[in-house]
């Protein structure tokens, strides 16, 4: 049984805007899938339909074998969602928000309190349990929504840009948390604009653009499509013009920074030996962009 099966899903809003044009995809149980796409591509609409916040125009959705048109309540028992925008009562206390959500899933009060404590502790919010939610920082509010989404321990967790506006340290701790959750068996779908995040965490990838899926594949095979790489070399001495290199394209960013693009099958040794021959001393080097970012931009921009 698949964790999620989406078939020919389409959505046209009352304004006439066609947000989804019949997308289809499925997610295996235990998967960690990235759903990427530019703003307005249809990611949040897809999540909205799966979680009943948006009415679909046509198509079908099955969550762990349960069709949402037949028994949405049963299907909802298996899904937890962390939305993009903060959507909790700003005046309620942190622990109350999480435990109350348990009540909506029919969890007895004692169990809801117990789970609220467990997840607030895991997400480093237990000390804030008695504070009104409006007093939390942006990162804490995101973690609060994760704790709330996990209160009924869903088999499928959907996170819509969970690390937006979160500092690097916190983002990394959230990654670890999600990785552990996935290892314990929770299927995770993640949308993000941080492609490094998707590359690190996710095994499969779906790219949506203009309401259509333009890429659906395992992350590894997707990344293998990349046929060139770009490096930036920090130079020990100033250069006035970019050198001519064999089997590589060079351009100066400034006097001390040289950008070099090479084909994937080429080694860097060739570049370094040419630098040595030309008397160019290298102090440091870095990848210009993440590999995924290059592919993503190429796909979305149709290059």
């Amino acid at each position, binding site marked *: 049984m698949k964790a999620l099966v989406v078939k020919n899903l389409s959505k046209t809003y009352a304004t006439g805007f066609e947000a989804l044009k019949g997308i289809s995809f499925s997610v295996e149980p235990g998967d960690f899938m990235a759903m990427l796409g530019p703003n307005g591509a249809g990611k949040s609409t897809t999540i909205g339909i799966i979680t009943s916040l948006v009415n679909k125009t046509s198509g079908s959705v099955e969550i762990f074998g349960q069709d949402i048109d037949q028994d949405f*309540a049963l299907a*909802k*028992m298996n899904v937890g969602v962390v939305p993009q*925008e903060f959507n909790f*009562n700003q005046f309620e206390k942190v622990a109350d928000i999480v435990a*109350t*959500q348990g009540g909506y*899933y*029919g969890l007895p009060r004692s169990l809801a309190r117990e789970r609220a404590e467990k997840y607030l502790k895991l997400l480093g919010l237990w000390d804030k349990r008695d504070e009104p939610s409006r007093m939390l920082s942006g990162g804490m509010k995101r973690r609060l929504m994760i704790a709330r989404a996990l209160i009924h321990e869903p088999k499928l967790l959907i996170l819509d840009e969970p690390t937006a506006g979160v500092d690097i340290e916190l983002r990394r701790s959230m990654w670890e948390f999600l990785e552990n959750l996935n290892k314990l068996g929770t299927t995770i779908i993640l949308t993000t604009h941080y492609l490094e995040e998707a590359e690190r965490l996710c095994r499969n990838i779906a790219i949506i653009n203009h309401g259509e899926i333009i890429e659906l594949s395992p992350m590894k095979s997707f990344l293998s499509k990349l046929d060139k790489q770009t490096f930036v070399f920090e130079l020990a001495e100033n250069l006035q013009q970019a050198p001519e290199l064999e089997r590589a394209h060079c351009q100066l960013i400034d006097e001390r920074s040289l950008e070099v693009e090479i084909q994937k099958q080429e080694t860097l040794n060739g570049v370094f030996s040419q630098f040595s021959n030309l008397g160019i001393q290298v102090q440091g080097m870095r990848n210009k962009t993440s590999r995924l970012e290059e592919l993503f931009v190429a796909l979305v921009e149709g290059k």
Partner: protein
Amino acid sequence: MDRQQKIIAFQTIITKEIRRFTRIWVQTLIPPAITIALYFVIFGNLIGSRIGEMQGHSYMQFIVPGLIMMSVITNSYSNVVSSFFSTKFQKSIEEILVSPTPNYIVIWGYVMGGVARGLSVGLIVTLLSLFFSDMKMVNFPITLTTAVLTSILFSLGGFINAVYARSFDDISIVPTFVLTPLTYLGGVFYSIDMLPDFWQAVSQFNPIVYMVNGFRYGLLGVSDVSLVFAYSVIILFIVILYGWATWLLNRGVGIRS
């Protein structure tokens, strides 16, 4: 969801609603008490002593049931309309929408929250009225049932208003332009027998007349209208408003895009 889970979901919504209005008790419980106390002082004590008896009771005794009912109506309505609209406004309604809680539990949860506040304020006003007049109760079951049913009716009204509302202005339009005039013209301060024939006939179309008179009968044993007809009107309106609220929530009007 099994039956037990639904009961828990229902209790959760009611608890959250009661927690909300008791947390802000200075805004929800005190102002109506002050307003109604002023009515007692001005209309009951100062002006009422010059009016004399009405339907065999002092004017103060006559207006007490109407004022209690007025506070039940306005507080039931305003509790649900402001609470449900603010959950829409803050998007926290999504917490319930993504859960398996059925729509009828959502409606009754909010309605019972409104009833809890309406009856709480009604009780506070009743206790206050004891300082101004001798309270008697002719029929407790009628007093209680008319108050509870009226509270349910206006809580449903508040719910529907909140579903349609798009701004905070929208949640004050109905109370200001519909609820207040109907309440003041609903026989709170006078017996409709006192009106000319034409206005008596017009008053028959005001549902609040039946609620105020039903409640007044429970307390004083006097009413301008038939009790059976009063109950029928209240129950009919509850059925209509509940059907309307259910239709709105099932369609996701104002909630789902």
